[in-house]
């Protein structure tokens, strides 16, 4: 750190903002997570107890916490690959020489990303309605028994995953598309001369060239998907039988519904640690692969 003193003048404002709006709240959350701050403490700070790691320990004994963790991992493990696969598929289709009306489809496929989540969630609730929904209507035509998409504990999370994948794939698609356009045409030409099929071109030219982008998209999507909240909040309120309670939803309920800020802070910090660890792991794994 041999920066000349006046350098601080330049970084000062940024540091101040980060300090006030990021470091300070994180430190406060850390402190809060070691107390049992609740409405009794809000009434009178004498009722605040320092509980050490009790919030964490008690959380580990709460079945709902484990269920929330399980639900979140389920969402991430299924949702992230699905979402990336759909994004990549859509990008390849759009990039294909055979594609017509490219700009129209690009806009149409990107549209879900920019529409309001609450509005489309309402539409999806209609689509997936047990009795009157279009999805069950189509299934009925195929002779499949109606499925209670959002009301059955087994189906609610898959429905949420489908919804999230549909809502988000356009964003990654655009990133992939930009990168696909940057791959030199000569590589494909060489591959074709060597007699490589379409699939082998994909495997040996496209995917390796997309490597760094895949990593970036993977990390961004994973970090985003760990923070699942709005979808269950709007569509299922965590139900049925807590099958769509995510970590963040659990934290929201503890904090803003039940006013247990100690526990809520502990959940937030655990989630932070989890996302950090997974991101680090992804980086390590990709580093070894290269």
């Amino acid at each position: 750190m041999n920066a000349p003193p006046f350098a601080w003048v330049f970084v000062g404002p940024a540091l101040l903002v980060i300090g006030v709006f990021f470091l300070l709240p994180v430190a406060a959350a850390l402190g809060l997570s070691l107390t049992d701050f609740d409405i009794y403490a809000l009434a009178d700070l004498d009722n605040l107890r320092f509980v050490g790691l009790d919030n964490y320990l008690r959380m580990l004994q709460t079945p709902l916490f484990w269920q929330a963790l399980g639900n979140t991992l389920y969402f991430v493990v299924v949702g992230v690959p699905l979402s990336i696969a759909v994004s990549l598929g859509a990008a390849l289709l759009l990039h294909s020489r055979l594609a017509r009306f490219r700009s129209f489809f690009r806009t149409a496929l990107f549209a879900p990303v920019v529409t309001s989540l609450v509005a489309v969630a309402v539409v999806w609730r209609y689509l997936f309605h047990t009795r009157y929904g279009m999805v069950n209507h189509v299934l009925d035509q195929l002779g499949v028994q109606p499925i209670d998409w959002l009301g059955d504990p087994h189906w609610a999370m898959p429905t949420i995953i489908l919804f999230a994948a549909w809502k988000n794939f356009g964003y990654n698609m655009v990133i992939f598309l930009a990168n696909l356009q940057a791959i030199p045409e000569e590589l494909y030409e060489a591959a074709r001369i060597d007699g490589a099929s379409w699939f082998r071109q994909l495997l040996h030219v496209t995917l390796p060239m997309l490597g760094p982008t895949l990593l970036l998209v993977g990390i961004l999507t994973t970090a985003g998907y760990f923070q699942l909240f709005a979808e269950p909040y709007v569509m299922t309120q965590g139900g049925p039988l807590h099958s769509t309670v995510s970590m963040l939803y659990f934290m929201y309920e503890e904090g803003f519904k039940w006013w247990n800020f100690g526990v809520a802070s502990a959940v937030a910090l655990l989630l932070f640690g989890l996302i950090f660890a997974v991101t680090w792991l992804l980086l390590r794994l990709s580093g070894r692969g290269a």
Partner: protein
Amino acid sequence: MMLRWLLGALLVLLSGCVPSPSDRQTIRFWVMGREGEVVARLLPEFERRNPDIRVRVQQLPWTAAHEKLLTAYAGDSLPDLCQLGNTWVPEFAALRALAELKPEVAASRVIAAEDYFPGIWSTNVIDGRLYGIPWYVDTRLLFYRRDLVRDAGFDAPPRSWEEWERVMAAVKENAGPAGYAILLPLNEFEPLLALALQQDEPLLRDDATRGAFASPGFRRALDFYARMFRNDWAPTMAGAQISNVWAEFERGLFAFYISGPWNIEEFKRRLRPEHQRDWMTAPLPGPKGPGASTAGGASLVVFRSARHPQAAWRLIEYLSEPAVQVQFHQLTGNLPPRRTAWRDRRLADNEYAWAFREQLERVRPAPKVPEWERIVGEMQMTAEQVVRGRVGIDQATQALDRRVDAMLEKRRWLLARGKSQ
């Protein structure tokens, strides 16, 4: 020139700070949901009678109200008075945010405790202290299809659980596999809570510091509740899955529905005219004859931080006048908490409302602890698990007690500390 302009601006600013008639008080009144829209129509008369008081109403949506109130408490910006769901009273009493109203009631010529339904009044009394005046009441009872019950061979609604079971069995037999006898949405805790409040045992024990859900009383209520699903009298559904309760009721998907007073107007409005003679309300059946039900509703409270507590109290008195309550009922369909108001023609002649009048004499408050809302959520979650056959009643209620005990740990600590001091 510039100076004159500046002076002028300063004068304008200053005049904004000076109250026009110096003795006028402005009270801030927070109201929720539909009540917030119509209460403004009751206020001109109040302001006419009290020229020195102006009321500023702010509407809050129910979904955001709790959060907003707590944040306002933390930020020291609560209004003078507020409409408060009566299950929230214990919480705000624990926060010591509410003013005690006993002296005001003692001195009041308008508000007399004896005129109120006792179950409703007592939701506002925490540890012997009065914190709110009931504004309107909400209890749950039976909405039923007369024709379906008649076709099943009964000409009166059931009064006891035993009769109820017989009616439901007969209705189900008539309806076949695609129909049901009763709708109990699994995401609503009120029906089960009402059945549980009908029992002799309390739901919390030891000064409301531990759960008592494993008691025979609650187990009996849960067993009855779960049996309605096991016998296929009730569909295993959450409320969101029935998109239009009124249409399904009209179609005859079910004959009984446990709901509250707002649905009187909804059924009148949404059912077709030819079906209007087919439905009625009835008090909730109990284990042995007519039973208790929930004591819900909203109260009017004055905050301790109020700047004009006396003016706020005058507004509460005005809104509690029987005539104003009847007017309020006309505007919202909300039921008044005072017996005098019920003598008015407009309520006494409402044939759908009389069952509520009878039920209101038998409402019981839920345990009055700040943690109750969370406890009752756990209760319903347990019931859903039992209904879906995930776990047996004994095991489920014991696990529920353990979770409730953990939630009330702080309360035990506070009480123990209070005693030792």
